[in-house]
């Protein structure tokens, strides 16, 4: 019995090992992004007819609510097309689009050169532009900060609200995780090359979670997409300029980044039709209605 058990184990091991060789490193990245992206619906990119097609969008939480609104608007015209939208962050969006686990990857930042080198099949379409606002808990007394002050607060050089004209209390910095497009855009435009976001910052994994944390944590500060601003958080002017759509559109508010939709290769079929709709006047109307900036 014991010898049989040993032999059986060996045979099973060899059989299973033989089945898994050949996909050594693709398997974990695939598995990792599949765990967080929408299930792949490859037919959507190649089937030109629209009977019951599904388009899967995954990635940036900044683009997520906009994509959902655009999907609803599009469904009014084409009731057979279903768009499913998931979050995960911009880097997830880039990876999902490149590897085909989602039809469209959403990113709220420029695609990095290293990502273009790693995934040369990426096709980038900018559908909107979005501002990043500096937000704080409603009880914070400060109304205005310079860019240098924002940089110093987030890098941990300034630690007390009294150093920037507020009450004497320690600043709680809240940030997104490293793969976030909002964070990437914020780091590029505000922090610059040298300054890093402080290691003591509390990390949250979506714009929504950041907003909830700011709304409930006294003396907190964070950066947040324009599309997520509401009454539960207080916005802070940067260099005297308020974070509004008008100021972003006319260029006086400078912390603005592109919202990109990425596909693997040229978009086809229902995906192409939806993207063309988004770039059309009706689509851009929806973009503006949601608090983002049009691209054309």
């Amino acid at each position, binding site marked *: 019995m014991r010898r049989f058990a040993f032999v059986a184990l060996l045979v099973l091991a060899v059989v299973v090992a033989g089945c898994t060789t050949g996909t050594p490193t693709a398997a974990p990245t695939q598995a990792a*992004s599949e765990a967080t992206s929408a299930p792949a619906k490859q037919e959507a990119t190649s089937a030109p007819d629209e009977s019951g097609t599904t388009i899967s969008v995954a990635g940036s939480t900044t683009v997520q609510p906009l994509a959902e609104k655009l999907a609803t608007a599009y469904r009014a015209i084409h009731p057979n097309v279903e768009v499913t939208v998931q979050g*995960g962050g911009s880097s997830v969006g880039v990876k999902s689009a490149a590897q085909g686990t989602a039809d469209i990857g959403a990113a709220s930042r420029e695609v990095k050169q290293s990502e273009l080198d790693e995934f040369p099949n990426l096709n980038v379409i900018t559908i909107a532009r979005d501002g990043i606002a500096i937000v704080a808990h409603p009880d914070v007394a400060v109304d205005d900060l310079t860019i240098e002050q924002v940089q110093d607060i987030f890098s941990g050089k300034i630690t007390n609200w009294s150093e920037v004209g507020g009450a004497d209390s320690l600043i709680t910095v809240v940030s997104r*995780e490293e793969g976030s497009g909002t964070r990437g855009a914020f780091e590029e435009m505000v922090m610059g090359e040298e300054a890093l976001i402080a290691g003591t910052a509390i990390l949250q994994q979506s714009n929504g979670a950041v907003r909830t944390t700011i709304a409930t944590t006294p003396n907190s500060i964070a950066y947040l997409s324009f599309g997520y601003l509401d009454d539960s958080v207080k916005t802070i002017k940067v260099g005297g300029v308020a974070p509004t759509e008008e100021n972003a559109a006319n260029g006086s508010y400078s912390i603005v980044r592109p919202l990109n939709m990425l596909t693997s290769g040229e978009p086809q079929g229902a995906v192409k039709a939806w993207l063309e709709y988004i770039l059309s006047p009706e689509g851009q109307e929806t973009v503006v209605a949601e608090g983002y900036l049009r691209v054309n």
Partner: protein
Amino acid sequence: MRLTYIVDRGAKYVLLLTALLSLLVVFLIGIFTLREGWPAFTKIGLGELLSGSVWRPQMDRFGLWPMLAGSAMVTLGAVVLGVPLSLMAAIFMAETAPSGVRNIVRPAIELLAGIPSVVYGLFGLVVLVPMVRQIPVAGNQGFGILAASIVLAVMILPTVTNISEDAIRSVPREYKEGSLALGTTHWQTIVGVILPSARSGIIAGVILGIGRALGETMAMIMVIGNSIIPPRPLDSNPLTIVLSTARTLTGNIAVEISYATGLQEDALFATGVVLFLMIILVNSAARLLMRGKRNG
């Protein structure tokens, strides 16, 4: 007659094969994780990986020390808070509870084991974190090791209580009767005779609880803050280290795996290997102790 003989032998082999299959699955998970994490061990080096105190993948720094410290402190906190509670619950249910009360308390404790960990995280986020934030220490954000320890203590309660109660119940009646016959009170018997006899079983229960605490992910991400620095005291009082935010090994993997590529992904798998080894150690220790208890 031959058929029954074949069925009899055949069934035994089928059962053996299914048991071997589960063994194989554990083995394969270990091999897979080790293979994916191996580049991290060779390129980053075991020393830097385990003792480096900076984790910034964008700058190619992969030091796991902050997460090791975070996991260790949170587990220690859970044991300190949860084990006395569990022990007292176990003593209560095994020795002093009237059967009506026991029939209510035991299902309640078992229900605790069935609550999904994300619900614990939600409870921690919405109830515990604001409560911990009330502690008047500058820089206390509510998120941190204390809140996480409280949540974990509640999560390991069912495990430790269950096994401790079994250990207490399996103390031979003669010990208890002999002690009572000598004139000691019930409580003196419990403390002086029953608990020492059940000691190895109780320790085994605690160690299994530690294993559970080490592997907890979702609830930890939601209440511990996920900052990348090692836990440190907030002011001159060293006890305030429990109010520091931190990140656990499990949280490290969960927060970053969805967008990690290349060496960062390998480093996260290496984190998985470290966790795997810790759990094996913990479970082996528990098994050794439980076997000792049954024989002695």
